[in-house]
């Protein structure tokens, strides 16, 4: 992954409404995500965060309105959009090794097998799994499995990374190191990121912008730019006055939205 190899994707949600099973999950959501932007989505549980992400991934089609990707209507999943699923255990092929799981993405793009091995080794090293190529997911810790899933997503050479609470099931230490790794990877690739989380601090720490959803049905309630300097630091950034002010603002929003 070299800088600028795949310029980031632009997403435009144009009054998107999604009905599922007779219920309106998202209502009249309009949103523009600029190329290379890191947007975090927060909100009360059941508020449609994951649904919004699945719409961006093309896994759902809007009932009304449209999702545009780089100016074209999104009609289904695309290899340009990599999805990091929350439940890594269900997103990795248990019968394939770490190497084989990354290989799947390259096989999908039709890269000849002679070129795969180098790229897979590099990708595994990038996510911090250089010696784990022959291990099966069941032999890896949760953090390693999530790293592996990220490696497979990077293998797609995506224009956007769509991450659905990717670190929700990990312990605090693993979580922080993965946050920093993702920031470094994204800065190198220039990919756009939509990152769903229920952790407000995580959203502020990672994002250029945090969007808060109001529940029942899901709507955009708040859209906060994050002006914290980069590169960010787990201690200094989180202790800065601006960080604490943003945390207060979002916390109040979430509390109010739950009433």
């Amino acid at each position, binding site marked *: 992954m070299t800088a600028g190899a795949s310029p980031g994707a632009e997403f435009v949600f144009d009054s998107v409404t999604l009905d599922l099973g007779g219920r309106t999950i998202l209502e009249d959501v309009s949103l523009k995500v600029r190329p290379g932007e890191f947007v975090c989505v927060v909100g009360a549980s059941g508020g449609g965060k994951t649904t919004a992400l699945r719409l961006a*991934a093309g*896994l759902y089609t809007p009932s009304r309105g449209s999702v545009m990707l780089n100016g074209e209507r999104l009609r*289904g*999943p*695309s*290899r340009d*959009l*990599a*999805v990091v*699923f929350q*439940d890594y255990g*269900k*997103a990795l*092929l248990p*019968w*394939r090794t770490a190497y084989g799981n990354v290989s*799947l*993405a390259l*096989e*999908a793009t039709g890269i000849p097998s002679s070129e795969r091995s180098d790229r897979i080794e590099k990708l595994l090293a990038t996510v911090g799994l250089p010696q784990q190529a022959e291990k099966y997911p069941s032999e890896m810790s949760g953090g390693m499995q999530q790293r592996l899933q990220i490696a497979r997503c990077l293998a*797609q050479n995506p224009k956007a990374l769509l991450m659905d609470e990717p670190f929700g099931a990990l312990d605090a230490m693993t979580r922080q190191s993965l946050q920093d790794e993702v920031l470094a990877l994204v800065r190198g690739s220039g990919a756009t990121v939509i990152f769903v989380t229920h952790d407000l601090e995580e959203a502020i720490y990672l994002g250029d912008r945090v969007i808060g959803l109001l529940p029942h049905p899901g709507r955009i309630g708040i859209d906060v730019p994050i002006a914290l300097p980069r590169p960010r630091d787990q201690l200094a950034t989180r202790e800065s006055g601006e960080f604490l002010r943003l945390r207060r603002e979002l916390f109040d929003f979430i509390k109010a939205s739950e009433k």
Partner: protein
Amino acid sequence: MNTSRVKGVLLPAIALLAFEGWAQFSHLQSDALAPPSAIIIALLKAIGDGTLLGATVDTLAAAFGGLAAGGGAGLLVGVVLGMARPADRLLEVTLECLRPIPPIALLPIALIALGFGYRMEICVVAFACFWPLMVLSRTAVRSIEPGLIEVSRVLELSYLAKIFKVVLPASLPTIFLAFRLAAGVALVVSVTVEITINPMGLGAGIMAAQQALRPDLMLAYLVWIGVVGYALNDGLFVAQRLFFGPNSTRARQK
């Protein structure tokens, strides 16, 4: 051989010895029973003159032929139905009507259509083997982790790539279990076809021995069929552990 197997053999060995003793003591004369010693002699003779092995090859050829044809077709239909709900609904009634038909009930039609010999036997065995493969592979494909299907969508895998890289590997342990069950069915059905109608293989051998009033040879065939069935199941069991690891058989094997 471990101790639990030795213990398992103990009871039948005692029963056989007791029966042998009783048969010798009472000078057993019967058209249905023979002492174990006579059965063993008949078995060795039948092995020695090649009739038993020839019959075994005939039966196994028909059983495996039917297993391959019927099991293969069942696998194909099961995978397709598991993946495509509309096809599943379209064919459900038809398949559920055909399924309860006992394979042996097809014999009169199969005989008229195909005559004696391999072809007829293979067809009847194939009908019997179709069902376990169809039902189990359909269930296996349907119960694949939805997350894996989403991964294949996100990666834009082609339909065939999705089947060969995701659906089949995920269902393989269950499919192999279905083949093991079907192999047992194949042997039962092929011997039954031979006993009732088809003049070849182990089943016909039993009938010939019966009509020649040779209970020793008849029972020797019976013992042999047991040995073949046991070896078949054991072989497939070992193969399953080899391919899918020791955990693949633990929960399912009773």
